């Protein structure tokens, strides 16, 4: 295989009628990358005080067919999960992402709820994950891969239940990026392998433009919001 790197870069520069970028312009571009300044951001979510921002998140998530229950305290989450599964006649068995925040919840207080901790398999019908942030603007969840977050757990199970703390609800995607950069500060910002923005359950309109939920990803997306009065 020929190496086409140099010919392609040459062709680009020829079309732009210049040689390599002058040092000064290159420095300006480097600065643009380093500063990652925000472009205009819609006011829909940024203009809201924290409580209303959470209400917007709930409204937007429900508008894209996610369902949501609020609980007051983290220890109420297992009961909310069990109730949700019972309500939809789903089996009380789930795979739970190996996330310390989920480990801390009292799953054993619901003995009828069978939970397995780990990476989702083909046979897992229900998956519970945490999340990194939740974007009010469009009711979007932001999750990322890592030891605590196997990406496949967000996609393989028929039902995805995500646990969100009120303090994780941010206004915009840009706020999410800033939090991620902050969380991964240290030896320079390195993106996780995968960042998933999830807005409602899987869907398709590929057959006669008719929207059907549950194409390849989860058929149902349920959010358990721990509304402990804390706000971002």
């Amino acid at each position, binding site marked *: *295989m020929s190496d*086409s*790197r140099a010919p*392609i*870069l040459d062709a*680009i520069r020829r*079309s*732009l*009628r210049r040689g*390599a*970028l002058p040092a000064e*312009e*290159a420095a300006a*571009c480097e600065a*643009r*990358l380093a500063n*990652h*300044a925000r*472009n*205009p951001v*819609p*006011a829909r979510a940024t203009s809201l005080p924290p409580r209303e921002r959470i209400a917007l998140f709930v409204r937007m998530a429900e508008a*894209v067919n996610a369902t949501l229950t609020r609980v007051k305290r983290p220890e109420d989450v297992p009961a909310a999960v069990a109730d949700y599964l019972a309500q939809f006649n789903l089996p009380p068995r789930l795979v739970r*992402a190996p996330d310390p925040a989920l480990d801390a919840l009292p799953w054993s207080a619901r003995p009828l709820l069978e939970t397995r901790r780990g*990476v989702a398999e*083909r046979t897992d019908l229900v998956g519970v994950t945490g999340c990194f942030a939740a974007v009010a603007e469009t*009711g979007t969840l932001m999750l990322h*891969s*890592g030891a*605590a*977050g*196997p*990406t496949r757990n967000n*996609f393989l199970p028929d039902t995805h239940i995500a646990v969100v703390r009120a303090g994780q609800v941010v206004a915009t*995607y840009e706020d999410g*990026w800033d939090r991620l950069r902050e969380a991964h500060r240290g030896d320079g*910002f390195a*993106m*996780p*392998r*995968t*960042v*998933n*923005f*999830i*807005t409602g*359950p*899987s*869907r*398709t*309109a*590929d*057959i*006669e*433009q*008719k929207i059907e939920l*549950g*194409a*390849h*990803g989860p058929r149902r997306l349920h959010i358990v919001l721990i509304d402990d009065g804390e706000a971002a």
Partner: protein
Amino acid sequence: MKATSRAFKSNARRALGDPQLQRAMTNLRSGFAARRAVAVSQLPEWEALREAAVAIKRHTLAHLDFYLEAFERRVVERGGAVHWCRDAAEANATVLAICRRLGARTVTKGKSMIGEEMGLNDYLEANGVAPVETDLGEYIIQIRHEPPSHIIAPAVHLVKEQIAQSFRETHRDLDPARQLKDARQMCDEARAVLRPRFLAADVGITGANFLVAETGSSIIVTNEGNGDLTQTLPKAHVVLASLEKVVPTLEDATTILRLLARSATGQEFSTYTTVSTGPRRPDDADGPGEYHVVLLDNGRSALLGGEFEDMLRCIRCAACLNHCPVYQAIGGQSYGWVYPGPMGAVLTPSLIGIEEAGHLPNASTFCGRCEEVCPMKIPLPKMMRHWREREFQRHLPPRPYRLGLAVWAFFARRPALYRPAADLAARLLGALGRARGRFRALPLAAGWTRTRDLPAPEGRSFMSLWAARRAARPAP
């Protein structure tokens, strides 16, 4: 992909006479176009976001070499690889080499227009690797051995009965007596059939909506989640992307993402927006062990700095297709190559040559709707006009057409001749057509009058009416 754009006219004629296609195409207006209008109306900042997006792309294209090198550097830092490919042949060979090294027998694919441009599926199959399309629409056209008819909804030209038929012919191990009456049942069947394919695939291939120079990431948006299963489960994730997909920062990609889903399907945001950076990390619980970006030029570097550069801003949302009266009437396959509709009418001649694709920029009413709805403000009608000019300069249109145009141009350049000639023609046609009010046939214009009548002129040209009115009314 092999082009049949030369046969555009006969393709279009066939499409117009195809009742199933005509029925399917009526869904487009009530679906995508109507939903887009609602989504746009709900975002007061729409115009400001368009302006910002155009500025981002202009800046990036003017510094494309810099941002591609920056992107590559970050990909390599994160343990991935970038493969620069000048054309489809190089890109195909690169993908095959990765598959061979990993001993891959099947690959899953997320929908990729670059993959279509490369003709990757045929190439892999010919070389013993079985590609499985996983986007529902793309899967449907793969089992029907058809090219896509739309850049985000590849099977939009089909009605559900045709799809059910194809499922029955392909999924032969399923109960022949099963019901396949509605989209829900077919959707469930495709999900069940494809799930084991996702789990068995050795390599997962996706496209890219964006490449991010800041982080060395590729971004895809899907609604089905197929792109995520495709890239997460196999040993390697291969990204097919063309040069112009790069943007500087995550913030820049975010701004354009706010335009993309709204323009495409009328959603506020696509269900899944996925940012992928390098292979899995040592302590990751899952993910692909390898990450490759196949970076394809295929004629794009030549568009920079010229009259078609604006086309490189295109984000493949398909709003111009969804709002185009010509596309709505004939569907996408008539255009004869990967990209249909107005964006295809500009891009296809740029990539495969005006000799092959000369009909495409001519298949427009110049109503201007495409430019109006384009989130990236690409002047599509102006660029179609550029192609028509180039085609004329190269003497490509047929002789009678060129001759007619030359006669018209002779008069048009001489207003003192043109005006009396136009007035004479209007009077003549007006007198001849007075009885019926229209002409059913005209000499030298049989093609035009075959499907419509020419209304007879009232008898005076505009310029002579105007002059008469000015003369009758004294200047204030």
